[in-house]
């Protein structure tokens, strides 16, 4: 096999952003090349410069970002020196991009058929009706149901997955040779994620397009790319065949990243390599205490129903129990009712019917708006999804943690409060000198720790965790998960762990409940449930999560 001329060749690319605090180097000299029809994954955590690299390749950087050095040649033309006219000519027809947040990436006030037609008409001189006919074909190609009807739909009328298909249709409308997908499935459900990625891969293969997949998800990159490069702080640290990278990472950063990514077989305690261990020494891990027979459950939910005002059913006949110290996972796709359920259980939302007993006492008769006065409020605490939005921007870390102590335990400002806040901060591994800082001065992981410290401040018995790590990078997620698991064992806390990430739930929870359309599809011991799912839906969910053995098998099959 002769090596053909590469389609794309990047040499020592540097990108600098001018900010108020001076220039920031986002990409510091990376070199890579891509052949026609090849698939390449660029993996890295937030701030690694992977997206910036993608935008630099297409010259779609923000006005503040500049390519400060290096060369990008695409089919022997240097992109960095192109005029805006030839760039416009190239966009769409030679290289196209697919973005994160598909709904935002589409014009909200233009019908999708029109938008695809716009993209076609940008490069070909054909009549509007011909362009319209072609957009219809493209909608068919990306497997949108009822394409005739959808032609006139607006982005807000479509689901996120549908919008991403429309985006794909736009990107391939002029048959580009290179498709750059920047986190194309972040924010989509696992099953939708698989469908969209499969579609993207098959279209690219069919039309012989080279693809670059930019993602934070190692598993995703390994599954859909032949070759993967890893970026850290604007540099390429490792480049290898996808499977090799996963199985025997060489660079320490890659090793950490691979270790931190939860897989089907990983355990919480294995997630983090030594140099990232918590500030506090870990306690020896005792096996979780088995609840003795006959002890009443900590939480008991019977026939919970939620109907919304417009008649839609959010949750139907939901029953479950959690023993003290037990950790139960709640999984399902968006719209499955998992958040609604968890909100009713932690009394932020009133149920329509059903009973919730906590510690043998009914709490379901207390309306959500009055529950803050109930004694059970301090026993049931919540860790929210978004560590940024769930902290008051005017409160510093100390105030955030002290707030529940003052409101729920009636503690006064003073030495006792300071000691207790310090204790909580110490337990979550938050250095005491950070307590004076405000949320915007802290990193995502530190904010997540504050959220946890706030939740455990009143020594609750049940913690409801609503996607607690969804917004975090894998390495930070690993640390936070470990922290949560340790706290649970130390305090004999019970968890209701809501997540869409099956691998995380499998590690963190002894039992798992699978929800779909507001009803329980399946429940059982986590490992058993995921290893041998009884229902098709659960199997679909499990299969949608990429894992290494499966990927290896798939690749073998494809190669043979």
């Amino acid at each position: 096999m002769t090596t053909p001329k590469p389609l794309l060749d990047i040499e020592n690319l540097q990108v600098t952003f001018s900010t108020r605090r001076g220039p920031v180097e986002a990409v510091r000299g990376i070199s890579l090349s891509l052949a026609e029809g090849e698939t390449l994954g660029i993996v890295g955590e937030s701030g690694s410069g992977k997206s910036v690299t993608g935008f630099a390749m297409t010259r779609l950087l923000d006005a503040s970002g500049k390519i400060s050095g290096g060369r990008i040649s695409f089919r022997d033309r240097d992109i960095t020196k192109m005029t805006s006219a030839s760039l416009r000519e190239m966009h769409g027809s030679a290289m196209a991009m697919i973005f994160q947040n598909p709904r935002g990436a589409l014009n909200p006030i233009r019908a999708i058929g029109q938008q695809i037609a716009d993209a076609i008409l940008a490069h070909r001189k054909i009549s509007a009706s011909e362009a319209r006919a072609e957009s219809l074909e493209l909608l068919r190609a990306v497997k949108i149901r009822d394409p005739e009807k959808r032609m006139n739909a607006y982005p807000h009328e479509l689901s996120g997955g549908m919008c991403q298909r429309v985006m794909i249709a736009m990107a391939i409308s002029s048959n580009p040779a290179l498709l750059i997908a920047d986190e194309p499935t972040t924010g989509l459900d696992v099953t939708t994620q698989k469908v969209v990625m499969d579609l993207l891969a098959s279209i690219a293969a069919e039309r012989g397009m080279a693809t670059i997949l930019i993602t934070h998800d190692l598993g995703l990159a390994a599954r859909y790319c032949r070759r993967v490069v890893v970026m850290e702080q604007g540099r390429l640290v490792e480049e290898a065949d996808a499977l090799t990278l996963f199985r025997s990472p060489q660079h320490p950063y890659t090793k950490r990243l691979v270790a931190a990514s939860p897989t089907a077989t990983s355990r919480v305690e294995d997630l983090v390599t030594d140099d990232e261990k918590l500030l506090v020494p870990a306690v020896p891990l005792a096996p979780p205490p088995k609840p003795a027979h006959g002890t009443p459950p900590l939480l008991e939910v019977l026939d919970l129903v939620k109907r919304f005002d417009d008649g839609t059913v959010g949750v139907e006949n939901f029953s479950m129990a959690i023993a003290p110290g037990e950790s139960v996972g709640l999984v399902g796709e968006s719209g499955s009712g998992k958040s609604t359920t968890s909100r009713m259980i932690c009394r932020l939302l009133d149920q329509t019917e059903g009973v919730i007993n906590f510690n043998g006492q009914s709490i379901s008769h207390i309306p959500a708006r009055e529950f803050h006065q109930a004694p059970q409020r301090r026993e049931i605490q919540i860790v929210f999804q978004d560590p940024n939005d769930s902290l008051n921007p005017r409160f510093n870390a100390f105030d955030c943690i002290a707030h529940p102590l003052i409101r729920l335990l009636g503690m006064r400002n003073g030495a006792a409060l300071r000691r207790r806040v310090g204790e909580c901060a110490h337990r979550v591994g938050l250095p005491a000198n950070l307590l004076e800082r405000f949320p915007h001065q802290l990193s995502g992981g530190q904010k997540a720790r504050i959220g946890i410290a706030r939740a455990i401040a009143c020594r609750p018995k049940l913690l409801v965790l609503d996607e607690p790590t969804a917004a975090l990078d894998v390495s930070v997620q690993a640390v936070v998960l470990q922290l949560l698991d340790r706290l649970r064992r130390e305090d004999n806390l019970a968890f209701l762990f809501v997540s869409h990430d099956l691998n995380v739930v499998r590690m963190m929870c002894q039992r798992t409940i699978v929800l779909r359309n507001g009803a329980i599809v399946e429940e059982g011991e986590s490992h058993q449930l995921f290893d041998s799912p009884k229902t098709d839906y659960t199997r679909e969910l499990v299969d949608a999560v990429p894992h290494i053995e499966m990927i290896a098998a798939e690749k073998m099959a494809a190669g043979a």
Partner: protein
Amino acid sequence: MTTLGATAIRAARRFASSLPALFGVLIFTFLLMRVLPGDPAVFFASGPNSGKEEIETIRKQMGLDKPVPQQLFLYLYDVGRGNLGRSLMTGQNVTKDLRERLPASLELTFSALLIALVLAIPLGVLAALKPGSLVDHGVRLFCALGVCVPTFVSGLLLIYIFYYLFGVSPDPTGRVDIFTTLPPAHTGFLLIDFALAGDFDGWWAAFKQLILPACTMALFVIAPLARITRASMLASLGSDFVRTARSVGLSWWRIIVTYALRNAILPVITIAGIVFSTMLGANVLVEKVFSWPGVASYALDALLSSDYAPVQGFVLLMASVFVIVNLVVDVLYGIADPRISIG
């Protein structure tokens, strides 16, 4: 079509919900006029030395001797029948006075708004395309000047330049000079009526009379319109869908106009509605400077002479205009943004 139906239903619901507010305005103005110092009977008596009996007689004629609640009741009854009372100043029905003067104010305000929009939107877009550039600063300076200079100053300045120095515009006294024969009144808008009558000399004369006061008013409102256009255009240009449009290679014009500007225009519609209502009421200075026979100067005169009925009528008219303008803005918004008609 369903969207049209939905828009109509929404508009009707909006209108119905603003009726209580109109009623509140009615009562509030009535009470306000009664609280204000000044006795219309004294004012309209023959002279400062007129006797007590004469004042009493006038007061009785005007119904001011009755208790306030009864006056209010009578007033509401009259308004309900479409009778806004009689102006003591002009001796005519307030309804008739307002109907004569409203088209003049509306024509002036519409023209001013049109001029302002035609200038402000391109200026805002230009400023947004190159933020921090000379153009941006120039637009900012122009807007600041427009807001800083009071309308009577800019009005007088324009008169000084175009009438006194260059002599290109006619003397600033009203809508047409008195020797022009007026066209048959169809709409009350002189420009339209002249055009309908086919009298283009008359149209030109009316246009020349109109252009200076309209520009004076426009200058004042260009600033908010241009600023909001710039801000929302900046947001729009920085949005993900404009990046998408660039990534598929759409032409510059299509990106700026079809993608960015159409999205950016939504808040401008809202502001334009507010600006229009404010202009209509607040253009009293312009009307005074240019001797424009509009409703605002009419209301001011009435207020100065404690003439209750025209003031109350004027406030009610303004409130109604406000409601209608909001309605129009609402409908326009529904047409411009498909996301609104849902929910």
